């Protein structure tokens, strides 16, 4: 995609975000109140942080399905180890972030070095982590999140939620890395064509592995922060983030086939998904109907905004011409 049309996809995502916000405020007065907006930012931040690593993985031409249980594992282990105290976080947080990154690196090595398809590799790691945590905790982990984590997740500085600030810093860093660094440039190249990247002398393996490593890192980070939001860790708290992290990237204008997209778009994607979850209950739909509409809306948004459709059309046209 030309830079212009890539920007168009990102602008489209922000357009959708604003339109949804306005529509929702019509159905549900008070939606635009400061308190409500703040809670949207908080919820979007969790999606946004998980989707940060996912953005890098997808741009690099892969996909990370191990996100839910990396997130769960970090959440469960953090609350268990800390037992409600702040002091042990000093070693727990770095340790679990490193462990998340390590799981990501294992994903990356399996995929880049041993040629395991990304879907299989990350799905397998997801299941393995799930089993491991179930065995370790006996299926019923129960420990409260330490106060510091709760502050990070739901506290505010003036009117601004703390996690919003955390997210902003991460977003700036991610955007800088994608747009302005050698690593970012290499990631787009590897995602566009691993063969061309290899023939151009790029460190293809290292680049792909780094993407997955980052994804493990951000999933673990989001997991620990999320315990602060719900007050404790519970199994399955990461499940919704598999779908939303991928959907946020795609709504943000990235091609699901790799090589294009930007974290700036993913941010809009995270907001779109969050606002949508707020809009649907306002329409008085039953829970089941809600899920159906939610899934369908995401499917349509992703299809329209991602390159996948353009790719498909181009493919069909070519086949016709060759006919």
């Amino acid at each position, binding site marked *: *995609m*030309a*830079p212009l049309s890539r920007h168009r996809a990102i602008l489209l995502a922000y357009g959708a975000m604003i339109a949804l916000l306005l529509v929702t405020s019509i159905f549900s007065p008070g939606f635009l109140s400061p308190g409500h907006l703040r809670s949207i930012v908080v919820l979007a931040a969790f999606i946004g942080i998980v989707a940060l690593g996912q953005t890098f993985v997808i741009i690099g031409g892969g996909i990370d399905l191990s996100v839910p249980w990396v997130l769960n594992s970090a959440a469960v282990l953090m609350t268990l180890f800390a037992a409600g105290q702040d002091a042990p976080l000093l070693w727990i947080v770095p340790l679990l972030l490193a462990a998340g990154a390590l799981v990501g690196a294992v994903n990356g090595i399996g995929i880049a070095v041993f040629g395991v398809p990304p879907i299989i590799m990350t799905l397998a790691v997801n299941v393995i982590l799930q089993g491991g945590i179930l065995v370790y905790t006996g299926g019923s982990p129960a420990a409260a999140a330490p106060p510091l984590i709760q502050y990070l997740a739901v506290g505010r500085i003036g009117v601004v939620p703390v996690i919003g600030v955390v997210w902003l810093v991460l977003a700036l860093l991610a955007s800088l890395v994608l747009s*302005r*660094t*050698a*690593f970012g*440039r*290499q990631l*787009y*190249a590897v995602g*566009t*064509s691993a*063969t*061309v*990247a*290899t*023939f*151009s*002398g*790029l*460190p293809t393996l290292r680049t792909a592995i780094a993407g997955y490593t980052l994804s493990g890192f951000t999933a673990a980070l989001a997991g620990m922060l999320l315990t602060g939001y719900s007050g404790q860790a519970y199994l399955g708290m990461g499940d919704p983030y598999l779908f939303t992290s991928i959907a946020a990237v795609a709504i943000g204008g990235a091609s699901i086939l790799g*090589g*294009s997209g930007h974290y700036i778009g993913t941010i809009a994607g995270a907001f779109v998904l969050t606002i949508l979850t707020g809009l649907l209950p306002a329409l008085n739909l039953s829970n089941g109907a809600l899920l159906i509409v939610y899934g369908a809306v995401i499917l349509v948004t992703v299809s329209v905004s991602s390159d996948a459709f353009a790719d498909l059309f181009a493919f069909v046209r070519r086949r*016709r*011409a*060759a*006919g």
Partner: protein
Amino acid sequence: MAFLEATSVAKRYGGIVALGGVDFAAERGEVHALLGENGAGKSTFIQVLAGSVRPDAGSIRLGGAEYRPADPRAARAAGVAAVFQELSLVPDLTVAQNVWFRREPLSRLATARRSALIERTEALFARYRFPDIAPDREVRRLSLADRQVVEIAKALAGDPSVLILDEATSALAPRETEWLLDLARSFARSGRLVVFISHRLGEVRALVDRVTVFRNGETVGAYPIGAVSDETMIADMLGRRLDRLYPERHATATARLALKVRGLSAGAALKNVDLDLREGEVLGVAGLQGHGQQALFQALFGALRATGEVEVWGKPVSIRNPRRALSPALGLALVPEDRRGQGLLLSKSVRENLTLSVIPRFSRFGLLSARREKALVDEMIAFLQIKAKTPEQPAGTLSGGNQQKVIFGKMLLTEAKILLLFDPTRGVDVGTKGEIFRLMRDLAAKGYAILFYSSDLSEPVHVADRVAVMRNGAVAAVLAGEAVTEEGILRAAMVERAAA
């Protein structure tokens, strides 16, 4: 009235005029060449003939009747079949299934259909004396050249009265090329028409009866081949006089060895290859297709695992991967065979493609400098005269010749001094070909060492200082001086086959 006659055929794409109103007339029984640079409108015109593009204006008559195909099927039904450069085969189907694709008799019993298909394919192959290709083989297991042959079979399957060959020889080895030229001749002699598009003037002269030249979407000349010189055809194509396609060749080689290869082997593809490439030398690599040239280039670039000794500028090295080959310590760069699949990120800009291999040259602590990148890009675009609207234009939207220039620019920016050029002029227009040859000789004069393979035998003869001829994965002969002729190369490439 001619058998196939097009009058004032025009086609625009938005603001771009692809065809400004071309005239074309060809008779039954002739092979008619359509010449022109890339972008002259040849492709659009044959797409019109093949029914995949509808003209905005003008008329075409075929055999006296109005010819206005709605789609490629309609064109085939009217007896017009085209073989394009881009292949249209389904990789997972067999040769026979592809040949009769969408023509298969609709039988419910797949097995019955299969044997019938294979029989019909064998009959077709026998009729046109096709090279040996098993009809039940899956297409994805065939070489590029064999796929091109299957593509030709597919076109002939409908027994057309007009056969259009668009650069059909560019992927073929000399032997298959010879076969296709024979086929075109006998096809025409049986009272039908061949429209032949090629960038190789030698082929055109040997084969065709008449030529029509396009330039910038207009017809600029139509001649019987006997009445027109190469210079006139080239001048028509370029709109200016090109002094000569091939540059002067001064001996610039020194005694210093840039590359010394001993006993390079890789499975069955490469057997004990010895090679010396000197500073300032253009060493041609030739031979029939599939005799190890590809493996040799890939092995030297680290893209294929091989055993043996390689010395670069006198130092023994191990070329583990392309990254190592491109590193400043070795300085080996490749123009790969597959421009679109190995050389370019088609969806990315000219700028990003040019600097892809030299990201460290404009970054510090991992941070890119847009200013320093722009300087490198502007310099290379000016040096190679790459015709892009802006450096941000996606590389995939450039013409073939300009795409190849981007790959050359990317290679030159690495400051590698040993260049491995694998078929750098394939599918490239005459004007750019001339520029590439001049560039090669200029670089050689500056001390670069160049290994050069071309699927067009006349190119190494005119451009290289010496030519290594490969046969069965080994170097069969190294020709120098007066011995470097097309006949000499073919003899060295085939002598063992003749004896066998």
